[in-house]
């Protein structure tokens, strides 16, 4: 008993299984990089690495919020549509007021409000998150289309565009944002009471409730955060492509979900990490980057992505076996 006690004085509260998975996943990234490096001489250049990081930032920001939702055994299919609407609103606010800050506030605010709505549908109205957010996706898309009426908003002040295309000390801005939210997300999940409660809810909502955890409120929070992150992501997109269009968020949702799953977060809730999601986002981005570098027929992209998702999760299940 004593020795046992001493051994886990330093050890974290997470199960060793998580560590195992993180290891497998990093291994995957390394292998992928090694492969690409041998195939393409430009892959390992600093520029390209920064480039990959910048591209993964967008995916990660959406996926990081989603990770929390999936930790509670929920799902948010509306983030793509959320990005679109938030981006369009933010864009027009910037256009009208000329104030980037106001625009950013709008984008994040809009995202958060949408998330809040999702949270209410799931908790107060008890609609399964899968369906609630699916319906929400359609409604948001409708509003976006209606609002944009097929037009494009473009040309934002340079200081705002720095957020997407700017550099600081030779590193692209989005990378800083990504790192920042990796830390915030990680701390929130691992080092706050709310984070712990979220894990508990994912593991067993009934127990959590009977242990004095305000399950409904935490769920609403989680969806709101997921929405806010989508809002943030929308700003990055805006700043990068310098324009907003109704279809901006299309086909961003499934990749984000894939990133979370490849990142080792379980759909059944209670286990997973934000850091894992970053790795997931990196893997998916690396694949696309590699394909462009090697100029592989883009038709291969969905196929390869699909195979990678399967592989990653299969390795997980194996890791769990060994872990237990």
């Amino acid at each position, binding site marked *: 008993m004593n020795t046992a006690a001493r051994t886990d004085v330093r050890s974290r509260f997470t199960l060793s299984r998580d560590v195992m998975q993180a290891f497998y996943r990093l291994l995957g990234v390394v292998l992928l990089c090694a492969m690409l490096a041998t195939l393409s001489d430009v892959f390992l250049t600093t520029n390209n690495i920064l480039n990959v990081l910048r591209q993964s930032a967008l995916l990660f920001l959406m996926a990081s919020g989603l990770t929390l939702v999936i930790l509670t055994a929920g799902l948010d*299919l509306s983030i793509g549509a959320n990005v679109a609407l938030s981006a369009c609103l933010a864009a027009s606010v910037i256009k009208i007021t000329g104030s980037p800050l106001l625009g950013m506030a709008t984008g994040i605010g809009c995202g958060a409000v949408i998330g809040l709505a999702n949270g209410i*549908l799931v908790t107060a*109205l*008890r*609609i*399964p998150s*899968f*369906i*609630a957010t*699916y*319906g*929400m*996706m*359609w*409604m*948001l*898309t*409708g*509003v976006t*289309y*209606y609002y944009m*009426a097929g037009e494009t908003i473009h040309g934002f002040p340079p200081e705002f565009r720095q957020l997407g295309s700017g550099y600081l000390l030779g590193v692209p801005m989005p990378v800083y944002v990504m790192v920042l939210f990796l830390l915030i997300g990680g701390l929130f999940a691992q080092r706050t009471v709310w984070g712990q409660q979220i894990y508990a809810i994912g593991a067993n909502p009934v127990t959590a409730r009977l242990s004095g955890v305000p399950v409904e409120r935490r769920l609403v929070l989680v969806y709101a955060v997921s929405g806010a992150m989508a809002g943030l992501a929308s700003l990055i997109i805006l700043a990068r492509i310098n324009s907003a269009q109704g279809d901006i968020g299309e086909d961003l949702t*499934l990749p984000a*979900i*894939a990133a979370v*799953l490849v990142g080792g977060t*379980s*759909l*059944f809730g209670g286990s997973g990490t934000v850091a894992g999601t970053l790795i997931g986002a990196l893997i998916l981005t690396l694949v696309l980057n590699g394909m462009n570098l090697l100029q592989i*027929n883009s*038709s*291969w*992209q*969905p*196929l*390869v*992505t*699909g*195979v990678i*998702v*399967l592989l990653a*999760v*299969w390795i997980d*299940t194996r890791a769990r076996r060994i872990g237990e």
Partner: protein
Amino acid sequence: MSTRGFSLAVLPVARVPGVAIVLVVLCAGFGVTSPGFATPANIANILTQSTILLLLALPMTVIIMTEGLDLSIGAVLTFASIVLAVTVIATGSPTLAFLAALGVGLCFGLGNGVLIAVFDIPPFITTLGTLGIAQGLSLLVTDGQSVVGIPRSIEQIYSGTAAGIPFPIIIAALAYFITHALLYHTRFGTYVFALGGNREALRVAGISVRGMLIRVYVFGGLMAGFAALLMTARLNSAHPTAGIGMEFDAIAAVAVGGTSFERGNGWLLGTLLGVIAVGVLRNGLNLLAVPSSVQVACIGALVIVALFIDGMRAER
């Protein structure tokens, strides 16, 4: 809770109203506001349009009852229809082509089943993966082009009628009754309820859970193959984007129909109503010339309202 026999086994009590109410409201609303709506021609039109989605929603109901999911079904449909088109053009034999399409469905169904049952990969992820694979294959085979030049004999399957009833409706009706029989009158169906409700019960009864799971996904794949036939006949061609996103429409229809994602609590008739409700909504809005953007929002509203009503019912 009523306790009158068989009906209970078929209808999850709390669920009955939602979709029915919505459907009635929609039909009443459109019937009043849009003259063209309540005509036999239009009703036939709505039903025909709903057939392909129904062919996907039926197996989706069964799959969801096993606490599973099949995100690949739309992409499999697409790939199957491409294979069908390519084969029929190459060989000129519709039968062979149809078998090929079924083959594709079978393979993907089998693949999903094995990955889920044997490799223990959660259905959502498995089928998300196979979705990518099917989509990729479709693009690779066609290079993004539609496949055209299909003999009329295939188109007949969609446009033809028997005794004034369009073939698609007959096929869909058959599919529905077959699925109903499977679900409520065969061992397969009984074990589907058990897969979602209590797998331990199956094990104790000495029935292979894995085998059953695989069968369920194979059923999904095969139905996708049938749907591919209708889709190809309808477009008189095959296109690598034709079925994109249909899996979510199907899942939504099932959920709207009152099948819950837990404990094998499913309701096949609800799925049928759900599919029709979506069809009626789209058709009615088109007849009213409602702007597309509003239509998009309405579809979302339909899904949420239907489940909202169910939720309210479930409370008491």
